[in-house]
């Protein structure tokens, strides 16, 4: 405090603290997003829609259309040839179960444990960043990564779709047609819905990250929990617990392509993610604020 007052620049009393809160968040974002590892993850995510687009293009290159009911694979794949915008939906359907959460798991799992194993955590704490603030900043930056990762998939899919296929009016799942502009808007909403779907899992990863001093262990455990939850979600014998598994409503984003939009599962997903964020966020806070930092 006295340091801030000593600097001659006159400023409103609250300014330094607000600037500082922004400063540490900005530093955290820059540190996370500019890492080579993060860029590699985003690069892989950006490549997925391009590969899907090229595969579909080659498959249908001879002019024979893939037909409305054509084949398995991710949802919306068959519509891609008619409208490049559908590549956004197809790519998000393809990456949401595994690639996107895996990338989030790596970033969230490493967020605290990585600092601990590198020893930098102790220097952030004696700076002093403050344990609660540091945890909030970490979670905020993981959430930003969720959004960035989703937007990277969506943007790459949009670009690849527009280049490889015709774009135009969108046929909704309900069979009605909406204009391309409204289609784009829906695509944006879907990207946000997908990013929000990852917030509960991100909190879980953050909690796991506070449990160990090994970044690799935390990442592996987080991704392990993801795979376990996905497997449990497919076992009909465990139907009773399905509504409480964080990936259960992930595909609800497709309801945004109905006309009118079905909000039922979307809101249920939102509530479930909020529950996970609250439970595991609190657990992470309880753990991190009382933890002995001895590495």
């Amino acid at each position, binding site marked *: *405090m*006295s*340091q*801030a007052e000593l*600097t001659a*620049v006159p400023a409103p009393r609250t300014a*330094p*603290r607000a*600037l*500082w809160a*922004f*400063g*540490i968040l*900005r*530093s955290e974002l820059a*540190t996370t997003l500019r*890492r*080579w590892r993060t860029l590699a993850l985003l690069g892989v995510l950006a490549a997925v829609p391009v590969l899907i687009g090229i595969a579909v293009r080659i498959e249908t290159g001879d002019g024979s259309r893939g037909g409305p009911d054509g084949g398995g694979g991710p949802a919306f794949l068959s519509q891609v040839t008619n409208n490049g915008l559908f590549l956004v939906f197809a790519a998000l359907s393809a990456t949401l179960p595994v690639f996107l959460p895996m990338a989030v798991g790596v970033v969230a799992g490493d967020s605290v444990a990585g600092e601990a194993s*590198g*020893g*930098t955590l*102790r*220097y*952030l*704490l*004696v*700076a*002093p*960043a*403050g344990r609660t603030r*540091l945890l909030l900043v970490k979670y905020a930056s993981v959430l930003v990564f969720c959004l960035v990762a989703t937007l990277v998939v969506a943007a790459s899919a949009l670009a690849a779709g527009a280049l490889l296929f015709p774009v135009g009016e969108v046929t909704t799942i309900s069979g009605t047609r909406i204009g391309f502009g409204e289609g784009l808007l829906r695509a944006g909403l879907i990207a946000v819905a997908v990013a929000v779907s990852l917030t509960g899992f991100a909190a879980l990863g953050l909690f796991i990250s506070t449990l160990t001093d090994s970044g690799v262990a935390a990442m592996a455990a987080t991704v392990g929990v993801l795979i376990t939850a996905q497997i449990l979600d497919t076992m009909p014998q465990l139907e009773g617990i399905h509504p409480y598994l964080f990936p259960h409503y992930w595909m609800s984003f497709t309801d945004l392509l109905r006309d009118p939009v079905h909000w039922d599962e979307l809101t249920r997903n939102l509530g479930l993610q909020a529950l996970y964020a609250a439970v595991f966020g609190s657990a992470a806070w309880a753990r991190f604020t*009382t933890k*002995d*930092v*001895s590495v």
Partner: protein
Amino acid sequence: MTDTAAEAGETEAETGPVPGSVIETRGLTKRYRGGQLAVDGLDLAVPAGSVFGFLGPNGSGKTTTIRMLMGLIAPTSGTAHVLGCRMPAASRTVLPQVGALIEGPALYPFLTGRGNLVRFDSADPAADPRTRRARVENALDRVGLAAAAGKKARTYSLGMKQRLGLAAALLQPRGLLVLDEPTNGLDPQGMREIRSLVRDLAAEGTTVFLSSHLLDEIEQVCTHAAVMARGRLLVQGPVAELAAGARGRLAVTTPDPGDAARILAEHGATGLVTEGDRVSADAPPGGTEPADLNAALVRGGVRVRAFGIERASLEDAFVALTGEGFDVAG
């Protein structure tokens, strides 16, 4: 256990710390989950303005103590005050005035040296973002890293990392600097630079708390020292007093060691040791003039090549205190 500790802490907070002490602990104890007692009832008092050497073999509890002082780990019982405030409760007001190098530097290998400092500086609530650049450049200059500031930290040598860690501790003007083994990994030239840096900082009024297992390092720069072994504080006080506590040695070099030892014994010398042509004994008590002993030797027909009192070093004091060498505590 924790309940009683908390209660004791509250009463402690009311009485407050002794004025004039920058660090003060009472009964500070840390027992790790395995049951191992790392620090045992530590009563430490670091006077303001001192360069305080915190000495002990590896594994004696120095780093655990420092971590408790910095609020990184919670004491099992006892209290710690830093700059007059209770830790870890007052971390937010105390720590901006404390620069620390704890158990070696830790850096982000993928950031540049400068990037690392910007990162640590932005974590400090007392650091004004508008003057961040200047602070970072100043700190880099101070430790002689300005030229290498643009390189990724993963390319740094251990000595450069150590310097960068020091730079992070020097980002702000500090009331207290806690340096845990600051010369680790440095070459002799680097060690000299660090010592001179510590002296400069002390001259500016910063209290420096310096932990080391190198006795001569402590002896060269410190005004006060404390010695720990196996989690317990053995002694603390001004370095001159500690060294004086261990008496010097009278050393005689002579081709006639047998006669010399006999004559010294006749004159009341204790702790006689004869090694080849060298005879040594505890330094005579204050009343005795060493020159008289020399005269007695010569009168007795002892041919004296060299005669003198060897000043007690901190190492002698340490050995006298612990009765053991400087080994890793088991």
